[in-house]
């Protein structure tokens, strides 16, 4: 017996100027299933879903819903047919409250004598129900701009649940969710499944996919390379289907298996504190050839610690030493001039220049770094700009028509790579990576890990903050566990396991 097919996409093709995003893609969604879409950055996953939601018109092909064949859909059609999307780029309105965001365009109303007014009681009640469902513990009247990224993501999910739906598309919903929040999301997904709705789930995180998926379709260069039952495949099979090869699992420095105590100290932080308590007398050392990772629960203050190191947030006290010499980092500019670089966590907010093309986005940092007069003086060297961008495009395999393309036209993962490229292009002594592989596909992740190793081996310092433990375990030689503004444990790679890190992060087990 086979479940009813809700949506069928037939031989869909989509061309953008200079790029064929989808070449001949067929895909279907059944009632009560989670259908995973998997593929490299720029494979066409988001584009396929945007065709289904009416954002893009397909160049050719068709979509069948309810036995009716559509050459193309409008957003209105999609809405009417019960297709809901949680987009990769958040679309919540920051200045409105949570509840207003949830019901934007369809506020609950009360009938008065001659007119309708917004029924705030009803709105609050329904909003609370939705927030409960997704596990967001916030007053529904809070303005969305006060929320963290992961909370905004949860609002986005709740918004899709606010109206009745037949198909819910989730484009990388877990990219910035915490472990706990992912559990909540999965519970929601299971409930939706039980109600017979169809779910499309896009993610680059294989363990998640193996857990929540029923079927998986692998996309490669805009074509379907296979649809499988999740039960019939292993994660490794999927990687092979997607990347066409097996990937390396570990990137540690093998030359120093018993720790780095003997090695030269490259970078040191001494007694760093923040006024808000997100860093309390923190000290650590980074040795030559070592990659140091920071694990911890979200909210532990790892990003805040790095902000203070990098000069993006004020320090209350503390010293930063590079090659044993104290350096000043009172602003990011000073930090950059003194040899630091930091890939920030929330790159859409703190990294992305939507008005720039790829080469301008990448070359900005080298330009600022080399300019005299506080980063202002000097001319734009177009040959350098181009060379610099091409170099990163090659190193990170950024998928684009040319480096003159606006970044807004790139796929989500490729946008992330552009920002990574900017910080690599600065050729700094010390690189801080905060969630380096957010939104990046498995194959490229492996390449980025290899790149980090190369950097460390060539004498640069690499610090990694990540909430993905497998990532830390794959690249770091040493893992520091951070909790409530303090380093509570330090594990050499040989002693680090998921279990003991999770334990230390939660309980603050200091031996």
């Amino acid at each position, binding site marked *: 017996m086979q479940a009813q097919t809700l949506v069928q996409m037939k031989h869909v093709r989509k061309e953008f100027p200079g790029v064929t995003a989808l070449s001949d893609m067929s895909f279907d969604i059944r009632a009560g299933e989670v259908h995973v879409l998997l593929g490299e950055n720029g494979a066409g996953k988001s584009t396929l879903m945007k065709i289904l939601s009416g954002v893009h018109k397909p160049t050719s092909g068709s979509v069948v819903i309810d036995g009716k064949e559509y050459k193309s859909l409008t957003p209105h059609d999609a809405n009417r047919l019960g297709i809901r999307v949680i987009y990769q780029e958040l679309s919540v309105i920051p200045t409105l409250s949570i509840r207003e965001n949830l019901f934007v365009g369809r506020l609950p109303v009360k009938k008065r004598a001659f007119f309708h007014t917004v029924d705030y009681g009803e709105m609050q009640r329904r909003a609370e129900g939705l927030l409960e469902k997704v596990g967001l513990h916030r007053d529904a009247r809070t303005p969305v701009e006060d929320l963290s990224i992961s909370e905004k993501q949860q609002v986005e999910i709740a918004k899709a649940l606010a109206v009745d739906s037949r198909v819910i598309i989730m484009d990388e919903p877990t990219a910035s969710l915490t472990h706990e929040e992912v559990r909540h999301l999965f519970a929601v997904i299971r409930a939706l499944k039980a109600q017979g709705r169809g779910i499309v789930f896009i993610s680059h995180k294989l363990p998640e996919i193996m857990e929540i998926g029923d079927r998986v379709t692998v996309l490669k260069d805009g074509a379907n390379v296979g649809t499988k039952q999740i039960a019939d495949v292993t994660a490794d099979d999927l990687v092979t289907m997607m990347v066409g090869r097996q990937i390396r699992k570990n990137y540690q420095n093998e030359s120093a298996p018993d720790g780095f105590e003997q090695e030269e100290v490259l970078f040191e932080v001494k007694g760093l504190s923040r006024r808000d308590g997100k860093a309390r007398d923190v000290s650590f050392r980074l040795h030559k050839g070592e990659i140091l990772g920071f694990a911890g629960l979200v909210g532990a203050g790892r990003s805040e610690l790095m902000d203070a190191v990098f000069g993006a947030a004020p320090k209350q006290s503390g010293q930063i030493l590079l090659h044993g010499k104290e350096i000043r980092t009172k602003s990011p500019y000073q930090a950059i001039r003194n040899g630091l670089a930091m890939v920030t966590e929330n790159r859409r907010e703190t990294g992305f220049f939507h008005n720039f093309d790829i080469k301008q986005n990448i070359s900005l940092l080298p330009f600022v770094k080399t300019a005299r007069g506080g*980063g202002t003086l000097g001319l734009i060297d177009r040959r350098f700009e181009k060379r610099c961008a091409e170099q990163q495009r090659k190193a990170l395999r950024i998928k684009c028509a040319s480096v003159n393309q606006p970044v807004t036209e790139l796929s989500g993962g490729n946008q992330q790579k552009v920002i990574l490229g900017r910080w690599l292009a600065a050729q700094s002594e010390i690189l801080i990576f905060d969630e380096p592989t957010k939104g990046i596909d498995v194959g490229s992740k492996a390449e980025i890990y290899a790149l980090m190793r190369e950097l460390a081996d060539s004498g640069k310092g690499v610090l990694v903050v990540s909430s993905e433990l497998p990532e830390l375990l794959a690249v770091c030689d040493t893992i520091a566990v951070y909790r409530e503004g303090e380093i509570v444990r330090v594990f050499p790679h040989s002693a680090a396991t998921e279990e003991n890190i999770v334990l230390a992060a939660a309980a603050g087990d200091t031996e």
Partner: protein
Amino acid sequence: MKGERNMASKERAKEKLTFNTLWQRFGTFGILILLLAILAVARPGHFFSVSTVTQILAQSSVNILIALGEFFAILIAGIDLSVGSVVALTGMVTAQLMVAGVHPLLSLVLGVLLGGVLGLINGVLVNRTGLHPFIITLGTQAILRGVTLIISNSSAVFGFPASFTRTISVNVFGLVPLVAIIALLTAVVLSFLTRQTKLGRNIYALGGNREAAWYAGINVKLHTLIVFMISGLCAGLAGVVLLGRVGSAEPAAATGFETYAIAAAIIGGTSFFGGKGKIFGVVIGGFIIGVINFGMNLLSLPSTLQQVVMGALIIGSVALDRFVANKK
């Protein structure tokens, strides 16, 4: 692989020639031509004369100068509402200096520099208070107008050397007004700044994403200062130019000119959200405002009606631009 990429770039080049992309590049220019064509049809006798060109150029210059500065303020997602008052104050001070016996050339230079200083004050206030430039420059607009009234005793200042007025109003080869050359030279310099310098690149970055600019090491406050200083310098230059063209310094001069400057920048394609826009567009935008002004006089519209028509045409040309650009 190589061939594939070549194909891709060729396809891209082809795409560039669609109506849409052409409109995006030259659409504003189209509106300018359209307005000129309307005038040519309505008043062929007057329109086709050499003096038409001279007059349009001269009339547009002050507005273009102010708009060039305004462009930068809008580019960083701000605004400068004080430019009209800066024009009046710099003109007034320059006139009084000359009347007091200071050499005209020195007075002129001091007038322009005063504009820069006033801009700097705007910038410092924005940086120090963290308030939106709209609020700050709304305040300085009133303050500077008040200062102009105080130092002039609310009356016009005449009687400075006629050589000053004559020089500023000169037409090179009897055709191109000197003021137009000043405006266009300023545009060329600023265009170079926006396209070829790191300073210009940083300002665009700031307009695109302030926080990302900060993380990338751009000194946000310094660049905000520079932007308002450029706006002030341009307004100062406009003040001196206006003084030369009018021949007297009026305390109420240039009232409401900030509106035209903003209109010119927006018609020229500058985004109110910051980070997007080009000097070339601003110049065209300034000419559009100038042509509308000139046309209304040519068609001898009663001055009471001129404001209404101007307002309607500003909305009309921006709406037309966006409408055509959004249509696929």
